[in-house]
């Protein structure tokens, strides 16, 4: 009996499900990446935070889990653009932490980004509405 040559249709179906999930995952990653800058600035709206706190909030509030080493270059770029400011603070933890806060131009920018994001999301929502309750 040659097992290799017989194709189990259940195997094929399983592979297809995995492939579809991977494609969807890729698309989700792209969408989230597009919102990353807005998410980081929005997280800083109420208070100053340090890098690891920003990463944790991204993960817990927005489900955006990014490699940890990439948050600092992003913050450094935002600083170069004048959107955020940073300062070293001697913490109780026994080592200094670098805190980031929004600057005034940063606040203006995140407001504009939020407006544009909401307008986009509302438009998309209208396009998705016909799908609700339609069994097609």
């Amino acid at each position, binding site marked *: 009996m040659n097992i290799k040559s017989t194709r189990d249709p259940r195997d094929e179906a399983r592979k297809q499900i995995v492939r579809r999930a991977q494609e969807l995952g890729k698309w989700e990653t792209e969408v989230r990446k597009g919102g990353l800058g807005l998410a980081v600035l929005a997280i800083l709206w109420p208070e100053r935070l340090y*890098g*690891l706190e920003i990463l944790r909030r991204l993960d817990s509030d927005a489900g955006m889990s990014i490699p940890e*080493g990439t948050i600092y270059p992003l913050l*450094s770029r935002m600083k*170069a653009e004048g959107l955020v400011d940073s300062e070293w603070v001697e913490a109780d*933890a026994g080592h*200094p932490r670098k805190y980031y806060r929004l600057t005034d131009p940063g606040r203006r920018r995140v407001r504009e980004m939020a407006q544009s994001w909401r307008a986009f999301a509302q438009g998309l929502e209208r396009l998705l509405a016909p799908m609700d309750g339609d069994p097609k």
Partner: protein
Amino acid sequence: MSNKAGMAHLDTYLDQVRRYLKPLPKSEADEVVAELRSHVLDRMAGQPTPGQVEAAIAALGGPREVARFNLTERVSAEVDEDRSPLTVLRGIARLAGLSLYGAFAGLVSFAGYGIAASFLITAAVKPFARSNAGLWRTPEGGGSYSLALGVTSHVRAHQGQELLGWWIIPIGVGVGLILGWLTWRFGLFSLRLMRRSAQRSRA
């Protein structure tokens, strides 16, 4: 004991990151390294054991990768501010040591600007050194020959044949400018490519 070993492990990692960050000014590299150190220590609950340090480092990425994220982003920010050929070339040179493509882009850029400069210099010198500046074709024996561009010695000038005469001036200026422009565009393209590749690993 384990505390010390953990800290030593962290220091080794940070030293490696610093080595890859050499193209940055020292103060900026110090800042990046200090922030990474603070990040790793914040991730520790209590004693930093080698195992905990290892886990934190794995989450951050390898030294070369972390340096690549930082340098690529910084160079892109600089080039967004100022797209002049010198800034682009400096950016390319900074990233050359961090990836195979970076090394390739560095090589092409230096060769491109080098050849462009040779054409321009030859064209500029021609009016003052009529018989020594130009494009020379010199027989090397066995039917082969070599081409030499630039300002050459009397001996070589007498052995070889000058190909362009006064035409070296318009041709040298034209070729030099076009090649320089192409190299500049290639540099901008390469920086965009390397940034996209660094961002892809961010997703």
